[in-house]
């Protein structure tokens, strides 16, 4: 394991700190959105601050939940379903 590997290993222990940094950054971004907005909103709604944050979060959650919990159970089969493997 080389230097970079060892570095990454150490960061695992600092997981909590990294997570706090992430939350902080996200909050800062939303704050910034209050002041900086699009010159030409695409959908009208996206002129509102926090729109894109909400968009990312909601769409992401919906996508994962719908696909993983609702769609996949219907369409999933054994790996060897077609007899290829």
């Amino acid at each position, binding site marked *: *394991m*080389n230097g*970079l*590997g*060892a*570095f*990454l*290993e150490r960061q*695992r222990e600092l997981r909590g700190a990294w997570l706090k940094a*992430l939350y902080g*950054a*996200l909050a800062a*971004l*939303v704050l*910034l*959105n209050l002041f*900086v*907005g*699009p*010159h*030409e909103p*695409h*959908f009208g709604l996206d002129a509102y601050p926090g729109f*894109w*944050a*909400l*968009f*990312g*979060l*909601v*769409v*992401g*959650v919906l*996508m*994962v*939940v719908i*696909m*993983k*919990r609702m*769609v*996949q159970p219907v*369409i*999933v*089969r*054994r*790996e*060897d*379903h*077609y007899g*290829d*493997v």
Partner: protein
Amino acid sequence: METSSFIHPAIGFLALAAVLPFLRGKWWNWLLPAPAVLAVFAVFTMTTGDHLTLHWLGQTLLLGRVDKLSLVFAQVFAVMSLAGMLYAMHVEDRGQHIAAALYVSGGFGCVFAGDYLTLFVFWELMSIGSTFLVLLNRTRESVLAGFRYFLYHTAGGLLLLAGLLLRYKALGTWEFTAMAPAANAPLYEWLILAGFCVNAAVVPLHAWLPDAYPRGTVTGSVFMCAYTTKTAVYVLARGFAGWEILAAAGTVMAVYGVLYACIENNARRILSYHIVSQVGYMVAGIGVGTAMTLNGAVAHAYAHILYKGLLFMGAGCLLYAAGTAKLDKLGGLAARLPWVMVLYMVAALSISGMPVFNGFISKTMTINGAAEAHQTLVALGLEIAAVGTFISVGIKLPYFAFWGGKPTDHDRPLAPIPWNMYAGMTVLAVLCILQGVAPSILYAYLPFEVEHPYVPWTVWHVLQSLLLLGFSGLAFYLLRKVITPHEGLNLDVDIAYRAVGTGALRFVCRPLAFLDDRWTEAYRVGGLRGLMGIALGSVWFDRKAIDGVVDGSARTVRGIGGLGARTQNGSLQDYLGLAAFFALCVFGLVWYLG
């Protein structure tokens, strides 16, 4: 006075393919990047215009149509070929290199083709080259996948062939030009469009991609992800710009691809579905048809080749080192393969559109262009796809491959990754970052004139991207237990064409073969025996009847002369029989004609 210069970049690769089987010694691997270097050189020194006309079968073919559109694609193809050849240098199986060389030549040939006939020839060359890149993986799974891939692409090629032949009949020319969108476009334009869409993996014609690409060789899939689909994007941009159906199709592709990517387990299959999604951006941009979106599509194609190649290289390294690409079997590898992880993340962030990387400068152009053209649904769809992209390829894949919530796996044996694989990846990573930081090096080559150039590096654009990506990442983090990949096959539209294939075999071909055999038997039983029956009957008739008559008459004659004895042999009977038959036929004909 401008000197005209054109070296077809395919030449080096064709030469490599021809020469490779005969090289001896240990050093031949070093020869592999040579045609790529030549291609890069050729692309940067060639002048625009029509070069290399050829007369064949009484037609005039144009092999070297160089203008800004073909040049930009050729450029990225050349760069990618260099990275790909570097990445593949360690492979000892020459067949793979030959297949890759033929495949890349096909790509260049298609891009520079000025007429449909040339395009078709190189299109088929690409098809066979890529088929072998799948077959040469040499597992049962890959051989079967290669067969399906080949049939599918041959069918697509035949659609193209039918279209271009009908077009020739209607217009009298093979020239490959733009076709204006019209509600009542002639059949041949739809056929050609269908042929192109097969290669572009437009939903629902896309199923070959996630079927074949994960089963290709480690280095082969790297090549494949770049050329087939982007050549299709090029020909769509050339021929079908502004066709609205493409805008809708592209948006569907973009979302469809990421939805499947969210639930797949095999890393390379996730990336394959991703190709469908990203190409959807390009197809949508072509469909909208404004100069901005067309430029966006081209820019996206350029950037996509770079970061998708890098993504496949990263996944390929995982496959090479750990022996599997299945995410549920990986994890805890970040500390052991740190550079692979870093280089992968460069690509992952590029594809997601993170500022500093080249996805940021290309993706947003298309979306903005769509919005400006008031195609709100398209823009919305593409933004949704952006969220999905980041979640599946940007986070899910590397998270479960390199961490997965597991501690560092020290026990797992990892094959050492050769330096050339790192070299290939580094080339692409550097370019991703360079383009992201200095977008003009890409924008300079974009072919269409826009009224106001797109400026990606504005505060708002950066902020919007960061917001979108940051909160998508949060969504992932919150749902990381839900999105855990499990082993399984997700059904896709290929159930339809597999059913057609096996159905045809089972219900058409085998029964026909059976019937043909039975009928042959019937011939033997009925026909041959019948014929033998007639023959025996004739023998009987011959002996009893004719014989009898002749004998009788001969005895009578004998009474007169003694000639009877001489007439009593078989040859006379034969002669009589034949003559009678002959005479009957002649008589019949004469009567008929008279």
